[in-house]
């Protein structure tokens, strides 16, 4: 398909801008102006609409396809949440207004939403207070690591590293490093949990904290979590709960009650805000009582007269990590979602996410090597090494595209060879799950009888398998 630049035609124009002039301004000297206008496309509005509509149809999406991408929680995005976030009073508010004197009165609605959502997330996680500022999950991780550093600095602790299991998302070690810490990686044991003996051997007085994903990226709930937390607290380390998999335990387990000191939640996963083709996400961070002083500023507060205001006077705060209050329009969606779910809906949601994953796990267990013998949580992980000779998980993924499914997450977690990570979510029907499993099994059989057919996939997508090596070598990164 042509690029928007390739359908451009000199002199054609899209949306008209008023041409009136109200000043006699002798603009500015030449050395401050660009030599020639930016070479943007010259296209009519109808061409733009058709071009991007056509492009949209070259995507798989939750709206059009089952999208069991493990660890990403690709659930349905309720349209009421979109409607709530689109209210003009919420969209057209300048973020600096509440920083003007008496300006807070102009944005009471927005501040109330932030305050209420913070309180709800605290209740759901059992943590004392939340910041909604982090703009994605990994940004939340970094914010949390910065708070860990501030806590240890304040206590006079000499801490050098953070402990992270090898099954963690790559963002964990990357965030720890960006927060100034070294990383100690602990291998997983046979059941997929962090090896407890190796963990204890690595833990010492210089351990700033541990970042744990629970349930783990293998979809398994670590039964030794309290033992780990106790050991970490014994060296004045901090326990960080990576909420990537929170959709498994909402309304049943509060990370704060387990003893976690900090946690981030991905609102674009568990709380159903759209993934947007890769963002915007949002990664609020909750902290326990003793870490409250380190939260980023500004903080939303409710005054005695019931109005909402912004507080800045927290001398131990890590400071500003975002220009304002986070991805507000995304936070509104999550708030709307939580209002509709309510207390019972929260638990019912996770219950069904876990049911759907276990249902798929048991249907596929006879064919693929499941990493767990028992129950999984909200996702199930298999190894594709039982596929026919020479057929890999990548081939299975491409064959699924031909059958109208987005592929599961593949080759992650890194400690499972040929990993296939399936997260169905609660917003899929039994019929969809049955059909998906049937297709998975058919591809499995085909890999034994006609491996070439699996290797040839995909054939129904707009393009076939793309040459990624050539892309990296040629580095054609813009249209010239």
């Amino acid at each position, binding site marked *: 398909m042509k690029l928007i630049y390739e359908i451009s035609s000199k002199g054609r124009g899209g949306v008209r801008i008023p041409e009136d002039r109200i000043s006699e301004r002798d603009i500015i000297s030449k050395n401050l102006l660009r030599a020639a206008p930016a070479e943007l496309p010259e296209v009519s509005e109808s061409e733009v609409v058709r071009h991007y509509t056509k492009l949209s149809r070259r995507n798989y999406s939750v*709206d059009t396809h089952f999208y069991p991408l493990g660890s990403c929680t690709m659930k349905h995005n309720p349209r009421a949440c979109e409607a709530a976030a689109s209210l003009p009073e919420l969209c057209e508010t*300048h*973020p600096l207004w509440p920083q003007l004197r008496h300006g807070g009165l102009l944005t009471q609605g927005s501040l109330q939403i932030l305050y209420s959502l913070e309180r709800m997330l605290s209740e759901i996680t059992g943590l004392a207070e939340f910041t909604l500022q982090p*703009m994605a999950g990994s940004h939340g991780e970094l914010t949390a690591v910065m708070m860990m550093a501030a806590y240890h600095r304040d206590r006079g602790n000499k801490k050098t590293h953070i402990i992270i299991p090898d099954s963690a998302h790559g963002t964990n070690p990357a965030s720890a490093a*960006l927060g100034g810490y070294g990383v100690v990686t602990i291998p997983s044991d046979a059941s997929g949990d962090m090896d407890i003996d190796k963990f204890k051997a690595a833990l010492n007085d210089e351990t700033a904290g541990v970042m744990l994903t629970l349930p783990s990226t293998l979809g398994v709930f670590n039964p030794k979590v309290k033992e780990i937390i106790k050991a970490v607290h014994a060296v004045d380390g901090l326990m960080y709960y990576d909420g990537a998999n929170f959709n498994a335990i909402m309304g049943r387990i509060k990370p704060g009650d387990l003893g976690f000191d900090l946690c981030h939640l991905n609102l674009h996963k568990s709380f159903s805000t759209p*993934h947007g083709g890769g963002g915007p996400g949002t990664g609020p961070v909750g902290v326990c009582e003793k870490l409250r002083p380190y939260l980023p500023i500004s903080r939303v507060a409710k005054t005695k007269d019931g109005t909402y205001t912004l507080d800045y006077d927290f001398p131990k705060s890590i400071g500003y*990590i975002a*220009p304002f209050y986070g991805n507000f329009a995304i936070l509104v969606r999550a708030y709307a979602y939580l209002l509709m779910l309510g207390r019972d809906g929260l638990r019912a949601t996770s219950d069904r996410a876990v049911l759907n994953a276990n249902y798929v796990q048991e249907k596929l267990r006879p064919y693929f090597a499941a990493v767990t013998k028992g129950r999984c949580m909200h996702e199930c992980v298999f190894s594709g090494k039982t596929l026919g000779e020479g057929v890999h998980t990548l081939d299975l993924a491409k064959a699924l595209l031909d059958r109208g499914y987005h592929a599961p997450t593949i080759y992650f977690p890194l400690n499972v060879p040929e990993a296939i990570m399936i997260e169905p979510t609660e917003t899929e029907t039994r019929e969809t799950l049955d059909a998906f499993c049937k297709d998975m099994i058919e591809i499995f059989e085909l890999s034994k009888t006609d491996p070439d057919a699996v290797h040839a996939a995909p054939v129904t997508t707009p393009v076939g398998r793309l040459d990624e090596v050539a892309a990296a070598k040629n580095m054609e*990164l813009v249209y010239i």
Partner: protein
Amino acid sequence: MSVSPFACTSPDDEKAMLASIGAKTFDDLFAHIPAEFQSDEFNLPEGLSEMEMMQQIRAIARKNSSDLTNFCGAGFYDHFIPAAVNSLTSRGEFFTAYTPYQPEAAQGTLQAMFEYQTAMTRLTGMEVSNASLYDGGTALFEGMMMALRISKRNRVLVDEGVSPIYRTMLRSYTRNLKIEYREVPMGEGIADRAAFAKQLDNTVGAVLLQNPNFFGCLDDLTDVIALAHSAGAIAVVSAYPISLGIVKTPGEMDADIVTGDGQSLGLPLSFGGPYLGFLTAKKKYVRNIPGRIVGATTDGQGRRGYVLTLQAREQHIRREKAASNICTNMQLCALRSVIYLSLLGKQGFADVARQCMDRAGYAWARLKAIKGVEPLYDRPFFNEFALKLPKDAGEVVSDLISEGIAAGFPAGRYYTGMENVLLCAFTEKRTKKEIDILAAKLESVL
């Protein structure tokens, strides 16, 4: 009926599915987790129907003021957004997809990102772009980190004309890293050449500048960038994309890295986000760029397609040695901006920039004519400028809010000694009449 409003299984389905996996109740699914880990106490309200939820949120939203005439900018601007931007980005195929891990199933997103990267390089006068970062502040931080990786040095010089909102973020982020961060006081409204010349030596790895700067002043930074280069430092320029419809590009000034916030390119103000961080650079630095990059390639039949490329820089491969920790970025916001730029096109985009300058030019003449009001700096500006008032600017703004006008941003909030300084911004949306009212009301409260 299911109490999970969006789950798709009926009670009969659930019974059968539970039975098929050897469970009787939902509780059985969690039986392997010790009971003392579980909680029954969730102090949350009962779930609402869609109708009730919308009523509740509407009532809350109405507590916001919605009819204010806005002259407050300070880096975040109230520009016109063509209707097709919303209409196209609301397509579920775009907004309910995720990161293009399976390129064959994500050519829509990938090609749009390739088009976005192209647009951003053309706006900024650079050669390569990533597929987005969170916002202008984190983008500047990433640009700084990138500059330090390239130069293999650890000292940073930041012009005080760089947005104080961004500088407060930089100070937070650099606190735990072995980086020596120093801010260089401004000269008369622009970067102080002599101060930079004095402080630049072969230990400085990054020089951070902004154009137009926080006070709206325009500058040709070519000489400052040359100074940085002669010391072996990398020059990072934060830019306001709408200004690039007309203003000299950082590329033309020989900047190495350009960052900024794309909010002005078709994103609503939305009380602070989501916005769009962008980062463009010279091609020779491409392997140091943080975040996702889309590249063109072909399939087995020679058909052109797009993939995420040069991924060896990223956290899912390099983990603690990655160029950045970023994973999810601002894809949908980047899509909005490339659609916005396409709708306006070459001519329209330059027209928007000229309209902004025109409105600001009129306001400049009107406002500085008010008795007791004088420009803080008598320098060329794009669409924003600072005025010195005869009284506290915060007080003036407060007085005018009750008149339905957000008159500007009081610079004293971030700069000591500037308590009387008001920063006023003008976009293509502001009319002559609105500016006349601003002038009249301002005069009446001074």
